[in-house]
């Protein structure tokens, strides 16, 4: 091994590693590793798409017959399909943090934290890989909505927006999950809390009914819930004739701000998990 004696080139490489380019490279390195793993075992993607398909096929079909929910001129299935897509992103992402507890229990996390990589790059890399994972999963859900005859937008520009919204939304909820994992630190507690969080986030949102139907206090909760903005954006971007309640700019801005906040918090908490 010719490498690396003391005082050799390594410190020069490392000392150069302080810029934005290095931050980006570290993010991509972490995300790339995760995607390698996903590519090897895609069965998870298939099993994860079962639940949203059931929501569309069973829940959607039944509720569509009642005509009890005011959907602003959309068919009920058209209305709920983006909500189900957002839900599938939420349900997958919210358990993402368990990977960190797993890596901590093994020792992978400790080794990563001893490297000079930015903590925020390690966190964002994980979040980004969750985003790409969610895109693959979303593609399956969209295929099902096509089969069900949901009136999807035809112009590709909308779908570029869908890709962006899905990736950012998944990064938001998976980073939130990381924060939870950093706080609770054990698998058992994490699973319990994950279950407790998903249902309120889902039902206190505009995913399967409009916010206007809710009692006042719940409307407040729904407006604070980032899932609401993800659904609102996706509904406008995916469904022909759908309007956005808050405006696409607001939807995206809320997601990006929440993500930035969560990455900052997670980067601070991340090192404490190793102890």
């Amino acid at each position, binding site marked *: 091994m010719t490498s690396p004696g003391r005082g050799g080139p390594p410190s020069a490489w490392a*000392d150069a590693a302080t810029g934005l380019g290095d931050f980006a490279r570290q993010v991509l390195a972490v995300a790339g*590793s995760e995607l390698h793993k996903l590519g090897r075992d895609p069965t998870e993607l298939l099993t994860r798409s079962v639940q949203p398909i059931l929501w569309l096929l069973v829940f959607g079909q039944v509720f569509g017959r009642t005509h009890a929910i005011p959907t602003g001129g959309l068919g009920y299935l058209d209305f709920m399909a983006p909500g189900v897509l957002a839900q599938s992103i939420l349900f997958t992402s919210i358990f993402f943090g368990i990977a960190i507890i797993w890596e901590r229990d093994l020792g992978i996390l400790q080794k990563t934290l001893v490297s000079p990589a930015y903590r925020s790059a390690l966190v964002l890399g994980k979040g980004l890989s969750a985003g790409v994972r969610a895109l693959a999963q979303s593609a399956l859900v969209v295929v099902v909505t096509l089969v069900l005859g949901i009136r999807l937008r035809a112009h590709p520009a909308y779908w570029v927006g869908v890709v962006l919204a899905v990736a950012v939304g998944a990064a938001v909820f998976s980073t939130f999950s990381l924060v939870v994992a950093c706080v609770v630190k054990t698998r058992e507690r994490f699973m319990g809390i994950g279950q407790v969080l998903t249902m309120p986030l889902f039902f206190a949102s505009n995913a399967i009914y409009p916010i206007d139907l809710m009692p006042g206090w719940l409307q407040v909760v729904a407006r604070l819930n980032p899932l609401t903005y993800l659904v609102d954006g996706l509904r406008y971007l995916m469904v022909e004739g759908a309007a956005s309640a808050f405006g696409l700019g607001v939807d995206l801005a809320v997601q990006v701000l929440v993500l930035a906040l969560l990455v900052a918090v997670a980067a601070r908490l991340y090192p404490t998990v190793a102890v």
Partner: protein
Amino acid sequence: MDPRAPDPAAEPQAAAISTRGLTRRFGPLVAVDGLDLEIARGTIFGLLGANGAGKSTTIKMLTTLLPPSSGAARVAGFDVVRQARQVRRRVGYVPQLLSADSALTGRENLLLSARLYGIPRGDAGRLIEESLRFMGLGDEGGVLVRKYSGGMIRRLEIAQALLHGPDVLFLDEPTIGLDPLARQAVWDRLLDMRARTGTTVLLTTHDMEEAEALCQTVAIMHRGRIAVEGAPAALLAEIGPGASLSDVFARHIGGSLDEGGGYRDVARTRRTAKRLG
């Protein structure tokens, strides 16, 4: 910038590792209690002791994973708290637990390390192939780590920790759970690596044979303090002819290997005690 130019921020001619009153408390428990250590560059230094003696906590502080409660430590000339990034660039760490990612190949594990340490793409490929060959994994680079044996995983982890050419390598129980052949292979690679690069190594171990085989200096830790420190030969000579490091251990701390530690530690102790027995 000339990569071989000395770093102006580092203390010149400093020891590889030096600590002053290094202390870590967990609530009422004092895991490491006013540790003063001075480890010269280029040595293999063994930190010995029972479970709960404070060895892993010491390593976590020296690798910047855990902030000290009080006291100070410098590694490769940099302060572990105030200059954590500089320290991280100059150390390699193999945790006691399994730290290679089993869902990736050996080469992919090394590639991730290369990128996190900012090794340029051009150098990374060459370094990765060299280090795989050096660690005796030349033909297994493309194999998923979950198919590796325990000894192969350890050698891969050491390769990962050495890829960026650290000044100081930390090994927490490097051969725990390995069979004698695999253990010997790890020892051979470590001794060979040190002869070639002069990297300073701090390792913790329960294994007295390991300490005798690898270390120029050992320190026996007990209840967060150093009970005794010296060259293995000198410590043995104090006891008398035919003595082993186990006897030194027994003399200085009463031979109780079973003190302290949680559930995970007990599982380790049982394995280790069997081997030592």
